[in-house]
């Protein structure tokens, strides 16, 4: 009731939507920076488009590309661009822009980590055939070409006359201060569906609690995401609403399977068996999750593998440990706790593991320290949010950059490469399901739950849509606000 006199920020009046997200000083406007962060992502999604994109359910849709056609060997792809796409400076988006973007990404000097996702593209083999046609000559055949370009890291940029970076996205940038705020205005020549409001302000926060406070204080309209533990407090507030989506992002408790004691499958199995998944769902995710079954990837539109749900079995776990001679296993579980649920899951897991005589000590590190040991931590909390095609390559192939579990299963590798060389979606799905089965039983990841993502927003914001890839709060197609 008192909300009427809430001291909302001056700019929030009229036709402006304010988004709150944890910010980062590292953010830049140009899309090919070394860092990836939620805040940079929320900004880039407004400024740029990709050639393709995942839709809300995990399927691939065309964006700047109108079509993608391979040759028979799958090593030359012809991309036809959408007609009439404008850059923010008013000029047309053309194939030249695509060539420039791709080459920039692939140039090692620019240290763009996501370039690893398109390492099959030959920089010199990207050719503009005409204004709206680009030919990609690949270093090796790729079946998942369209899926690959749907990655949110592979956006297309343009350059204006002065060489400044510009984009084709639904919003044009007005001002940007890293770590503080970005102001954007609607780009009226946008080729796609327009947002229903004029201005967008992205407010960057240092931490999550402040976002929650700001939302409750009426200072922001939409929170990028909220910690599950905050949800009850937010739901109790009559001025706020929440939108729950299934999510393709989840945390894992991961172990280095090439190292003792985790190289012993009995130990792996035991560590997976001690998890009381329902308790984690209820207490770490506030109920906003579904049972996880220790494989990555409910982030596709493929059906889940038909495997039994793993459940807590402390007796069996103890027995396995005894067999492996690891009765009093002592482990450090390392995390930087940056994603919601990480600390909570870690704490609950430590508590549950104690039931099988395993001593798990949770170690929270600052991000830099955590990253410094990345790849070396024997037991840590990881995070995965990319579509399975990418996940398979980066997390499970022996030379995958994010393969911190040091998983190396020849059967998996072979199948994964085969999957990436397939264009047929149904066929791909079949293979993905099998890959997931392999990692469920032999992989180093414990996936206790598949969390949902909860977006909280001010009543009055209409039209936000559930999204498997966590874009609920930053995809404003058709969103309107009423102050």
């Amino acid at each position, binding site marked *: 009731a008192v909300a009427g006199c*809430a001291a909302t920020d001056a700019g929030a009046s009229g036709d402006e939507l304010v988004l709150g997200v944890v910010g980062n*000083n590292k953010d830049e406007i140009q899309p090919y920076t*070394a860092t990836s962060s939620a805040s940079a992502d929320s900004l880039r999604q407004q400024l740029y488009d990709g050639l393709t994109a995942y839709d809300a359910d995990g399927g691939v849709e065309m964006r700047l590309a109108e079509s993608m056609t391979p040759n028979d060997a799958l090593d030359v792809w012809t991309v036809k661009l959408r007609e009439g796409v404008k850059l923010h400076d008013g000029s047309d988006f053309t194939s030249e822009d695509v060539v420039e973007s791709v080459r920039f990404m692939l140039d090692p000097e620019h240290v763009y980590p996501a370039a690893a996702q398109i390492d099959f593209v030959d920089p010199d083999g990207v050719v503009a055939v005409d204004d709206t046609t680009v030919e990609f000559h690949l270093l090796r055949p790729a079946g998942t070409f369209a899926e690959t370009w749907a990655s949110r890291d592979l956006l297309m940029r343009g350059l204006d006359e002065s060489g400044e970076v510009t984009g084709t996205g639904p919003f044009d940038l007005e001002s940007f201060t890293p*770590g503080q705020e970005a102001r954007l205005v609607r780009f009226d020549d946008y080729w796609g569906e327009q947002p229903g409001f004029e201005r967008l302000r992205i407010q960057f*926060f240092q931490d999550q609690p402040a976002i929650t406070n*700001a939302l409750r204080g009426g200072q922001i309209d939409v929170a990028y995401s909220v910690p599950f533990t905050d949800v009850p407090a937010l739901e109790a507030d009559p001025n706020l609403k929440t939108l729950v989506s299934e999510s393709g992002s989840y945390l894992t408790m991961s172990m280095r399977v090439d190292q003792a004691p985790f190289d012993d499958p009995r130990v792996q199995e035991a560590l997976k068996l001690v998890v009381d998944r329902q308790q984690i769902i209820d207490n770490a995710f506030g109920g906003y999750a579904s049972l996880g079954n220790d494989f990555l990837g409910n982030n596709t539109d493929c059906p889940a593998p038909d495997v039994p749900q793993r459940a807590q079995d402390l007796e069996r776990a103890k027995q396995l440990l005894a067999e492996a001679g690891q009765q009093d296993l002592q482990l450090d579980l390392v995390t930087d706790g940056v994603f919601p649920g990480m600390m909570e899951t870690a704490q609950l897991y430590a508590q549950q593991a104690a039931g099988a005589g395993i001593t798990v000590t949770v170690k929270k590190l600052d991000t*830099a320290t*955590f990253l410094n040991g990345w790849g070396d931590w024997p037991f840590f909390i990881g995070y995965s949010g990319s579509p399975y095609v990418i996940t398979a390559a980066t997390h499970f192939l022996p030379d995958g950059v994010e393969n911190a579990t040091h998983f190396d299963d020849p059967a998996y590798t072979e199948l994964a490469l085969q999957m990436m060389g397939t264009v047929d979606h149904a066929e791909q799905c079949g293979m993905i399901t099998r890959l997931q089965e392999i990692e469920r039983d032999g992989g180093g990841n414990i996936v206790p739950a598949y969390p949902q993502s909860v977006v909280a927003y001010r009543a009055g914001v209409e039209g936000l849509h559930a999204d498997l890839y966590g874009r609920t709060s930053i995809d404003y197609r058709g969103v309107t606000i009423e102050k």
Partner: protein
Amino acid sequence: MAVELLAAPAPSRSTRRARAVALAVAQGVGTLLVVSLLIFLVTQAMPGDVARVVLGTRATPETLATLREQLGLDRPIWEQYGTWLWGVLRGDFGTSLVNGMPVSELLAGRIRNSLTLSVVAMLIMLPISLLVGIVAAQRRDRAFDQGFLGTSIVVNATPEFVTGTVLIALLGTTVFHLLPPVSFIPPGDSPLAHPEAMVLPVLTLVVSGVMYLGRLVRIAFIDAMSSEYVQTARLKGLGTPRILARHALPNALGPVIPAASLVAAYTVGGVVVVEYLFAFPGIGAALVEAVNNRDLPVIQAIVLLIAATYYVLNLVADLLAGGEPQGR
């Protein structure tokens, strides 16, 4: 005995003072140098570097090497320090390692924000502390005094984050929605243009500050009021208001000024918690993020700034309180 306290001739006193100030400044610069060197060395010992932070989990040995080379992290640390120091001596604080922005540009707004926050807090805190302290001293051991002492014992015992959290819940989110719980200050705007954003952080600082300073004022006043010169003033037939204002106040300020300057230094350098709590875009918050990012030039600039502020405030307090800076 008293007779030998003959005044030294004025000029010699002031030259002595000037020399002492010069010495203090020199020592201050030395202190800053030591501080910067220590910081530099400690950051070298920190696990992880800016390249790792920037590249995150997708780093490969090659990308790490390239980035480190681009940032100059591959050079010997003495060379890095030398370059940095040389830059500082010419007034160039370098560029942020994480986003390449000049440190001065990155911090200018934040410095202004923090400074405004501290100054406003001090400006409100000082008169209130004086008033409360004087009234409590005047009503020594009566209800007001007892009440003030009791409150201050509890409030002083309450860490600021608790006070702040309670204020947020009370005024911002849960009970009333009167004030914004988070302090947005759009970049480029003066914090003074957003008074509503300042209220809660200032209030948090002021509440703790008043309870601390007010007590010092109270004690200083009790001391001054029981001094012989106040007794003399009474015997001269002066009224209480004049005695308070003219006789007790100037003397009572003596012990209060150093404490006030300490509080001022604290509100400049130690507001991290308050800034963190209200997401106030100041240097405290910037420092935390710089450390997390291992962004050395930013860390160094902020630390030097805080250390210098502290030092200057301290010096000023010495000058105000004791005439000469102590050659400590």
